[in-house]
């Protein structure tokens, strides 16, 4: 476990340093993503000028939800920034490079790229958490929950991309799936009917990316934390199973190309 964590950390450092080679582009992406996230809060700010609460959620709660989802997405894109390209890598036979390396293929593919703008997302999330929660242990708990949710989110999206082994290029389906998780996650779960909420805990497990982490930060309980961890372990296991089962069907593209 510690060895894997160290491998992920070292790879992320290399990716971020590579992105920082183009300093102006890197800084533009970080700053503009920060601005982008701030403007996203605008909709809720306008609504809360007119309404006191939305289905039991007050402005403070909705802003915390935004911070948690943005932070989760930021960490997922910073650490596992290659996930969105998995379909193309499979469909175009580019997995050969990873198969030749003495590392876990699933993990190595996902962490071999970092998104510079993701740092802007995380800075936004972290700052908003401090603004909402103060300098408290809750901020550390929030970051821990974002990290766990980022692992689960990555596993789910990677699972959708792994369908490329079976269906050809599944990029559009996977993109739709990841957008569904992020979009549904940005709204209080209580605005949806009971049936939809059940779906959010099972088929499209949005609740574990947004609602559960927020609840844990607001009111931590060990049983809920255990459920959160169990859902993440299950998500990762399923994702790896779908990927490795598909890998048996993989045919090399015999692609000879430099990897920049």
């Amino acid at each position, binding site marked *: 476990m510690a060895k894997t964590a160290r491998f992920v950390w070292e790879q992320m450092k290399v990716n971020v340093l590579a992105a920082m080679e183009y300093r102006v*582009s890197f800084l533009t992406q970080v700053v*503009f993503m920060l601005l982008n996230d701030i*403007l996203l809060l605008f909709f809720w700010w306008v609504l809360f000028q007119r*309404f006191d609460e939305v289905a039991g959620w007050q402005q403070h709660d909705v802003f915390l939800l935004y911070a948690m989802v943005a932070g989760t997405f930021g960490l997922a894109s910073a650490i596992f920034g290659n996930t969105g390209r998995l379909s193309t890598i499979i469909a175009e036979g580019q997995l050969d490079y990873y198969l030749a390396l003495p590392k876990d293929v699933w993990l190595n593919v996902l962490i071999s790229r970092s998104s510079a703008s993701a740092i802007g997302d995380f800075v936004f999330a972290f700052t908003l958490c401090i603004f909402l929660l103060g300098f408290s242990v809750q901020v550390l708990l929030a970051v821990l929950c974002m990290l766990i949710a980022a692992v689960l989110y990555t596993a789910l999206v990677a699972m959708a991309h792994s369908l490329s082994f079976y269906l050809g290029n599944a990029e*559009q389906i996977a*993109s739709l799936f990841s957008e569904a998780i992020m979009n549904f996650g940005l709204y209080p779960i209580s605005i949806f009917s009971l049936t939809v909420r059940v779906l959010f805990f099972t088929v499209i497990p949005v609740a574990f990316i947004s609602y559960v982490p927020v609840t844990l930060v607001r009111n931590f309980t060990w049983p809920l934390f255990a459920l959160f961890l169990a859902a993440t372990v299950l998500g990762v296991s399923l994702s790896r199973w779908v990927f490795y089962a598909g890998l048996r069907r993989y045919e090399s593209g015999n692609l000879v190309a430099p990897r920049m």
Partner: protein
Amino acid sequence: MFSHAIKKYTLLASTSLASKLAYPLDALVRSIFFAMVLFIFTKLWSTLLGADRAILGFSRAQMVWYLMATESIMLSNARIERRIEDEVKSGAVAYTLVRPLHFVWYQCAIFCGETLGHFLLNAIVGAAVAFALVGLPPASLASIPAVLLVAAMAFLMQFFIKVTIAMLAFWVEDTQPFFWVYSKILFTLGGLFVPIDVYPEWLKRIAEILPFNYVLYQPARLFVSFDKEAFLRAAGMQVLWVVALVVLAFFTFRRGVKKVSVNGG
């Protein structure tokens, strides 16, 4: 001469429309996302307004159809920015520049064709979802041509803003961050999710001065609550903004094209 140019660019637009319609599955996936957004907001407005309350004259049904109109415009506009940026970065823009076409009008023709393809499908899917969620639109059939005219002008405004930002690729390496912020400005000052009437007074005034409300808010507002005077005012302002944006786009192109340096080939 002029009719020849019109024919040339119309042919380009119809070709790009045909290429969009050739892949209905791709377009359908985009429409599923659209349906998802409508579903979320219907739930949100149902929670906030219930079945019979209204906010500043907007009922729940009007809010949902308003959102259907703004999202149709927002999600239908063709993503020309990535293509222009790639062309500039790779030097492929040199091939476009030597063709007997003007770069800006060439991009405009492609944009119009692709956008029309997206809009047809989005409007059908959006209308079906909105109808299933809240029933018939609060619009009269007679007002539809006027609303479509304002929507067409909104697309033109979108194009000239987008092409100007995309042409910044002549100077900077990555224009994507500018588009993130532009889209969020449309969210806010354009009134994507809520009509600008709902904003605090000072912010509403700022939104009214800027062009962005003519891209989303005005066409959608006219769709759910048509008023002849408001239509004439909005259409007039759109014409003025299009002229200003055309000037800005051509100015940017003339300055930017001087930065192109092509070696070999």
